[in-house]
Structures are given as structure tokens and as C-alpha cells.
């Protein structure tokens, strides 16, 4: 099929799809005029019931904590997926980390990048922990904070090198964080069964809204998810870095332009 025919066919079907989308979306409530009873109810009861001032977190880690467990395990499954897709294949060997992509000259990391990057590591970790710890009070939580924490390790890679990054975050530690976080979150759910009456029931004392230790199991869930997300993201990022830096095919391609390492 030529490009022209392909684009014409696509154009016609795209117009159809978009028309359907407009038709479907036109049936939604007018923008700014949403009357969702469930959400408005939660906005009234979440603070007195659960002592969280952030209702979104109350929804995620309490009212529909079960769904968030699924979400957490989607991430877990993706980490496993990336690890198995990017495993070391037969015919590949691991070598000293070196970026030797064809035709690319990698300049020495400048002093400015080193100093700024390393200087940002501590504040990044602090912000990450803050976002995780205050998830039940202000926007944030385990998912958001976990991603921030994972960037701290990337900053180390950026300002030092790959080996330093691996030394600061060795695989066993990353896997431990990922595993403990995911298992911990599931166990908090089971705790609801053991100490309460339902899976993911908030079984701890709720405390006073606005205080750091409040909202029962929600901060614990956020910490567990934060650990799991940090571990998962660092793991995925280092898998990609390994592909770029340490994995080399021993044999040459029969076709294709990319230069292969010896």
C-alpha cells in the first residue's frame, strides 16, 4: 500500500472515529456542571471519617484501596515485563559500561553538571520523602513521591557515572525495596481482614486531621507504595541504562547499519 493510499484510508477512518468521540463526549455532563453524588459525598465525609485532608488519597488508599492494589501490581508486572524483555540474551555479553552508540561522541561530564547534580540529590530525596509522608494531607503520596525518589538515583548517574549509581543503589537493595513495598501494601490490605472486617479496611486509629501521624493505615500504605514505586522505577531505569551501556552483542549483524562492539 502506498503512503498516499494508507493516509487516505487513515484519514477517512480518523474522521469517523473523531465524529464518534465527539458524539460520545457530547453526552457527558457539561464542563463544570458535574453532579457526581459519590464524589461530593466523599468530599463531605472523608475528612471526619478518615482524618485525611486530601480526599483523593483517601479514595486511593482507603475507599478504593483494593483498586490501588491492582494498580500497584500493574506496575509490579510491568517491572517484571521490562526485566524479562531486556534480559541478557544469548550472544550478548556484559562489558565495562561505555556509551559507544554509532557516531556519537560522549563528552566528559562537566564540573558544573557534577556539582549541580550531586547538590540536587539530597534535596530531591527530601522532597520525595516529604511527598510520600504527607500524601494523606496534601496532594502527593506514594506514587508521586516514589517517582521523585527514583530521580535521585538518576541524578547520581548524571553527575557521576553508571558504576557509582549501581554502588549507591545495588540490585539487591532495589529489588528489596520493590518487593517489600508491594508485599507491605498487600499485607496492609490483609490487616484490614484480620483486625477489621474487610480487605483494606482502615484498621488503625485515625488521629486528628492535619497531623502527620493520622489517617490510620493511609500513611503506611503510602510508604509501602512509595518504596515499591521507587524500587520499580529505579529498576526499570537501570535496565534501560544497562541496554545502552553494558550489553553488547558478540556477533555482528548481517544487516543493519548500527555499529556493533567487538
Amino acid at each position: 500500500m502506498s503512503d498516499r493510499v494508507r493516509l487516505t484510508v487513515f484519514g477517512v477512518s480518523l474522521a469517523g472515529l473523531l465524529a464518534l468521540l465527539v458524539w460520545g463526549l457530547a453526552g457527558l455532563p457539561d464542563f463544570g456542571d458535574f453532579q457526581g453524588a459519590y464524589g461530593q459525598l466523599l468530599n463531605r465525609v472523608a475528612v471526619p471519617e478518615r482524618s485525611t485532608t486530601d480526599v483523593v488519597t483517601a479514595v486511593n488508599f482507603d475507599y478504593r484501596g483494593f483498586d490501588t492494589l491492582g494498580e500497584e501490581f500493574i506496575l509490579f508486572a510491568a517491572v517484571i515485563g521490562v526485566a524479562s524483555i531486556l534480559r541478557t540474551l544469548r550472544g550478548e555479553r556484559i562489558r565495562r559500561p561505555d556509551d559507544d552508540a554509532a557516531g556519537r561522541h560522549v563528552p566528559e561530564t562537566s564540573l558544573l553538571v557534577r556539582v549541580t547534580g550531586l547538590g540536587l540529590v539530597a534535596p530531591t530525596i527530601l522532597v520525595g520523602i516529604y511527598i510520600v509522608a504527607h500524601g494523606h494531607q496534601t496532594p502527593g503520596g506514594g506514587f508521586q513521591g516514589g517517582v521523585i525518589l527514583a530521580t535521585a538515583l538518576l541524578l547520581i548517574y548524571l553527575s557521576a557515572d553508571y558504576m557509582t549509581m549501581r554502588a549507591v543503589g545495588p540490585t539487591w537493595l532495589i529489588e528489596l525495596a520493590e518487593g517489600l513495598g508491594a508485599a507491605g501494601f498487600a499485607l496492609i490490605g490483609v490487616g484490614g481482614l484480620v483486625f477489621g472486617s474487610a480487605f483494606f479496611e482502615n484498621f488503625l486509629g485515625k488521629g486528628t486531621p492535619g497531623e502527620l501521624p493520622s489517617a490510620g493505615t493511609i500513611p503506611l500504605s503510602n510508604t509501602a507504595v512509595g518504596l515499591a514505586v521507587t524500587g520499580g522505577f529505579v529498576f526499570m531505569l537501570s535496565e534501560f541504562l544497562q541496554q545502552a551501556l553494558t550489553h553488547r552483542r558478540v556477533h555482528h549483524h548481517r544487516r543493519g547499519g548500527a555499529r556493533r562492539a567487538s
Partner: protein
Amino acid sequence: MSFLPYAVAVWIVGVGLYGIVTSRDLVHLVICLSVMQSASYLVLLSIGYVKDASAPVFADVPLGTRAVDPVVQALTLTDVVVGTTVTALLLALSVQAHKRYGTLDPRRLRPGRATRRHG
């Protein structure tokens, strides 16, 4: 005017899909897919929006203040996580496709072009 946010979402789906169909690079294609998916964040958040309302966070506004719907916001978080995982998996597949075919151009990824794989 009240349809505008939804119209933007439709437009984002359109440009994302156009990018995917005309893509000559798998990484570009994956990014186009994330662009397309971001339309769903916009739709979710637009549905839950309430005029003149604050965020559903009562840390510094009194309880009972009109706030937007928290449920769709929570769904958006799930959506973002799913989007990230899809992107990560597709990028990983792109890395392997490049190893196998020596190209990232989707039009040149044909079974016959595969180099012999040692694994």
C-alpha cells in the same frame, strides 16, 4: 464553550493517532501513544470539574467548601500509572526490535529482515 475541554481531548486523540500512523521511528511512536493516552486524563479531569470549586484537599480550606470530584482524580492517578507502564514496556520492546532488525523504522520491521538471533 462548555464542550471545549472535550474537544481538546478529541484533538489530542487525533494528533496522537496521526503520529502513530505516520511514525518512522518506534520511540516516536511510543511517545505518540502517550500523547494519545493523555487525552483520557483530560477527559477524566474535565468530567469531574465543578465550576468555581476548589481542589478536593481540605488542608487549608474549611470542610464543606465546594470541591471538584475526587473520584475521577483518583482514577487519573491510576491512568497515569498505567500509561507509564505501557510506555516502559513498549520502549523495552523497541530496544529489542532494534537489536533484532537493526532499525527502529516500523515500515522496515518485516520478519524476512530479521537478523539471525543468538538467543
